[in-house]
Every structure is written in C-alpha cells, then in structure tokens.
C-alpha cells in the first residue's frame, strides 16, 4: 500500500500567460517503509516535489496523497497539523532554531502537537540519546559542529515518529566523514521508526547506498524508477 501517491502532479510558478513549470504531470509513489532516492540536476524539480510532499506548498493541479491525506484539499490549519504529525524533514542547512538548546529544538515538533512538557522532554532526550548527543542537550546550535547540528536535525525529524521522512541533501553541508556518519544514522533511525524515506540528492553514490529505489527527475518530470538491491 502506498504511503505517498502523486498522480499527474503539476506545479507552475509565475503568471498564467508565461508559467514556469517546476513539475509537469509527475507520477510518483512510495510504499510504506520504502527508501527512495530522488536524484536529478539542479532545477529538475526535486525541491519542488519535496515542498509539495512536506506540505509547504500546494500543487497547481493533480493528486497528492500522503499518509492517507489528500494534501491539495487540506486547509492551512490541517496542513500545519499534517506537517507536525505525519512527516519529518531533514534540511540541507539544518534549520535549527538559533537561540534554543539542542533539546528544545528536538522538542519543537512535540510541542507543536500539544504534548505535555514532561513527556516531550523525555522523548526528546531519548531521541538525542539515539543520535549520540544526550550530553549536548543544553548546547545551542552555535556551540555545535555541522555534523552535530545535522544529528540534532535528524533527532527532531524522527522524534514524533512520522510515517514519512523527507531528507533534502542532508549531507550537503558536511565533510565526507560526517556525511557518512549522518547518513548511516538517518538510515538506522528511519528503520527503527518504520518510516518511509525520501532522500533528495544529486549524489548517485549516496543514493545507491541509502535507497532501495532511485527516481530521477528531469525538467519537472519523473523518469522510470531504477530499483537497487536492498542492502
């Protein structure tokens, strides 16, 4: 059963007379727990696809169902709830709240869900512990390395146990050693929470390591999938 299903998905920017077609009749789906790598050159529509799946943007036309929710029809309020309950996102530039501790950053999705302070603190500490940063819980992002910040971002993406995790170039800002460690961590925790993973990257080698299926995007269209052996 598909956890993500995009059918005839279009996203146009600019004026109706002269639109920029970021996505053009894209077909895409993901099974529950599946790991998919979305590759393509810059401007191919990868980030647009991620924004639509993350509920940060709305498609111009087409069908987009994620975790049983028909995203184009959701209200702004329901879409915000979808973002904090059903998905977890790991951004390339970490996107941590600068004046908050690592622990507070990890707590944010749980806080947005309205969870009580004690429970969310326990869960956030557990998530930080899982990414090996429990001793840095009180530290602010500026006091941590890039690799550590991305590990905090991974903890934040999985702490609420979402059904889909979206990772947008998660190792793009890290050195090769940190990148390997972070990617390995993402794969481990994704497996633990049984979430589907959509990895956006232009690094085919990384895609081959992380994903069971490769989807290529070009000019806003999704090319036929290439399946890897599960490792």
């Amino acid at each position: 059963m598909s956890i993500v299903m995009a059918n005839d998905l279009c996203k146009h920017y600019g004026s109706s007379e002269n639109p920029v077609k970021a996505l053009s009749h894209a077909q895409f789906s993901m099974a529950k727990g599946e790991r998919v790598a979305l590759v393509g050159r810059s401007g191919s529509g990868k980030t647009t696809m991620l924004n639509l799946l993350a509920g940060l943007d709305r498609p111009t036309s087409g069908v987009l169902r994620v975790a049983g929710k028909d995203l184009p029809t959701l209200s702004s309020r329901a879409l915000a709830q979808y973002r904090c309950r059903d998905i977890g996102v790991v951004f390339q530039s970490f996107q941590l709240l600068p004046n908050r501790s690592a622990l507070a950053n990890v707590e944010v999705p749980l806080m947005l869900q309205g969870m009580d302070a004690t429970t969310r603190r326990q869960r956030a500490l557990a998530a930080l512990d899982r990414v090996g940063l429990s001793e840095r819980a009180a530290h602010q992002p500026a006091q941590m390395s890039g690799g550590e910040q991305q590990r905090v971002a991974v903890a934040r993406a999985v702490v609420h146990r979402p059904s889909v995790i979206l990772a947008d170039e998660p190792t793009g800002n890290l050195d090769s050693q940190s990148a390997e460690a972070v990617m390995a961590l993402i794969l481990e925790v994704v497996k633990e929470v049984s979430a589907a993973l959509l990895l956006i990257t232009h690094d085919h080698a990384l895609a081959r390591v992380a994903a069971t299926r490769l989807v290529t995007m070009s000019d806003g269209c999704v090319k036929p999938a290439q399946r890897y052996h599960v490792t």
Partner: protein
Amino acid sequence: MSFRDIAAMAWHNLWSRKLRTFLNVLGVVMACVVLTMMLAGTRGVEESIHRLIEGSDDVRRFGIYRSYKPNTEVPEEALRVEEGTDPERRKRLQEHLRDVWLRTHSQRTQLTEVELKALAELPHMEELRPDGRLSGTLVAGNAKTNASIRIAPLNRAARARLVVGDYLEKGDDEGVLLGEYAAFRLGYTSDEDLRRLIGTEVSVSISLRNARISPLIAMLGIQPLTEASLARFRNAVDASKLQAVERAFLDAVMAKAITTSTNQPKTLTVTMTVRGIVREAKEEDSISIFNLIRDPSGADIFMTNARATELEMQQEGFTSFYAAIGMVDDVRHLGTLVDEVAALGFRTRSSRATVDKVDTELGKVRLALGGLSLLILCVSALGISNTMVVSVLERVREFGVLKALGAQDGSVLVLMLLEGAFTGLVGALVGIATSLGVSHFTSALAQQYISDRLRHDFDASVFRFAPADLLLVITIAVGVCTVAAILPAWRAARLDPIAAMRG
C-alpha cells in the same frame, strides 16, 4: 501548541535577545514612570487638598443673608430684554430685573428667632450663629473698657485660639471668653495675670439703643431732643404757614425723632464668669482662598450663642438680624445645605464655588498630564513597533522553520503579540517600582512647593499610589505594547515558510 508553550517561547525569545529587550523595556519604563507619577501625584494632591478642605472650618462656614421670597412669580413683562441681545448679557440683565421686581413686589425674608430656629433645624446644620453687632462696657474689678461682643464659635479653629483657661461650651450662658487685647486693656498682660482672670466675675453693660440708629446720631453729632425742645419745635411748626403735605412730613419726622431720641437708652448689665482668654486669628490659621466668611475673632467678649442672641433681640426696635453664619457638619453636604437655605429665601455666600473650581482645575491638570503621559507611551510604542519589525526581519528564518515544522499562523501571531505584551508588562512593573523610589525623594520637595502655594502647612503625602491606578498603568502599557506588536506579528504570521527558510 498550547498557550503556555507559546508564552514560554515568547519569554525565552525576549530573554535571549537581552540588549534589544532592554532598550524596548527602557522606553516603556520611562513612559510608565511619567504615567504612574502623574496619576499618583494628581491623586495624592487631590486627596490631600480634599482632606484639607474637609477638615477645614473655613470651608464648612457659610454666610446667610436676608433676601426675597423666591417662590414669588415674576411676570414675564418685568424680565423683558430686547430681542437680539447677547444671550449671556440678556441673562445677567434679567437677573437684575428679577431682583428689582422682587424688591418692590415681594416680601423680604427676615432673620428673626423663628427663622433662625428653622434654619438651625435643617439637616447637616452643625451650628448657626446670628451675626450680631452688640457692644458695651466691660468692667473687671476697678478697670473698665469699651468692648465689642460676639458669639463664641464652636469650631476647631476657634478653640485653637484659646490662650489660657477653657473654651466656652454650648449651654454655658453665664460664662464668657475675653479677647487677649481686651484683657490687656483691663491691665492683665502676663500669663499669670491672665490665669488670675480665669474664674473671676466681670460685668458687661450693654446699651440697648438700636444699634443701627445710635451710631448714625452719634456720627451726625445730633444731641437727642428733650421733651421741652420737641414741644417748642412742634409749636413752631404749627405756627408756620406750611402746606398740609409739608406739615405731614414734619409730623412723621418728629414722631420718629421722639421714638428714637427722646427715650433715654436702656442699659442692661450682666455679670458673667471668665472661662478663658482667646487670641485674635492669624492668617495661617485658615486657608485664605476658602476663608470667605470669617469668624469674628477680633472681638473683646465672646458669649454663647443663646446668651448673645437673647441680648441682641432686647435691643430697641430690633426686628431681624442682618445676617447669620452657618456651619455644615461635613463639606460634602455644603452644596445641599446651601441650596436648602436658598430655597427658604435667603442669600448665601459659601466656598462651594471655590471648592468646585479647585476640583475643576485639578481635573484639568489630571487630563493634561494624562494626555502627555499617553503621548510619551505612544512614542515608546512606535519605537517598540519599529524594533519588533526589525526583529521579525531578523528572525524570518526562525519563523519559517517554526511554520515548516507545523506551527499555525495563529501561534506565530500570538507569539509575537505576547513578546509585545511581556515587554509592556515588565516595563510597567519596573516603571512602577521606579516611580515608588522617585516619589520617596521628590515628595518632600512637592510638599514644600504646595505649602508655599497654599500658604498653609501641607504635610500629607504628595503621591498616592492607588491599586486601581497601578492596574491602569499596567493595562495601558501592556495594551499599547501589544497593539505596537500587531503589525510585526501579522507579518511574521503571514510569512511563506519556504521563502522564509531561504532567508
């Protein structure tokens, strides 16, 4: 996201940007200090002045004068003033016309025993003294002196003028108070002399000739006519060739002359016991602006109301007192009592208008200072709004992340509004605390200034911090700062998370 979490996040945001928060709070503090001091100062001065007024005998005292029955209908023709006259002038002229008409067509009210009794029984009338003009000769031992006689007032200010002995109490009709100067004229000067005088008997001889005619005769230097002189004058008139009208006129004059001049003036001598010695009033004994109706402190002899009134009414040709002095039990009832006295047909003179004027002026000061403080607060609010707009621009990425992670627009809006509200709350609390400190040091200066202006001791606290005022300051500060945050909050809430995260 719960309200508690939003509030905690707002507080954390303020705390983590200390310099910005400090500058914002400082603006609010300054405005709140001005607002709090203004409210406390106005209230303090207002309450102190009211306390001064309420505790003052000068304000409670009012004059009562004979007038005309007000219930007499004045015909419209009598009040006719040309059309087109300025309305204010027309009103003033009509008052004159009404007065003239009443004088010629209406009965004048009198202040006889009956009216005085009715006035004394009015609610809230604490004391009523007819304003008599008795005089006589005061004899103590072998010494004697001419002396003016007045009723001893029973108020605090009058009692405070006691130098030696006890004050004269109501019902003590055999006792008298002597003026310090009268005692001096009798040869009693030192404290010991004055103490010797207490309890001794003095005699007071009072001429019962009509007080208003006697001084006139004396002034003109006319010798009273004897019976023989009058008879000769009458014969001369009879022998003259005067016309009937002229003869009638002279007859009337002679009839009057006989009643006022031919009778030997009666003299009444009463023996009384000295209870105390009083000094004359000094300027600082009263609040000059309210002292419209003065107590007769400069007399030589003071008697009880009952005794002096009884003597006054025994005078030849006495018909009515010219005036009386009333004393209301509480300043708050002054207006009501004065109105009731006026309704009985008497003219009054009281400090009511002055008290009202003081209230009005205090209200104006309060309004002006309040407006000024609000203006300062609004200027602070503009500064806060500006800083918060900059703060939103700086934190665009942060708001983008929050929204990308699932924060509702409303949560972001409330977050920013709460940051504004907290700024106002902290500013107000610090401002109030600062005001309390400042007031402690400035109170003495303000007291001195007010004392100088009133020419009366003013030792009450100048600043009065009422809980309601403090609550008002907090409400205004929080309200203004929250309003100042609306625009930045709206901008933050409406941010597109994708664009915001790009910065």
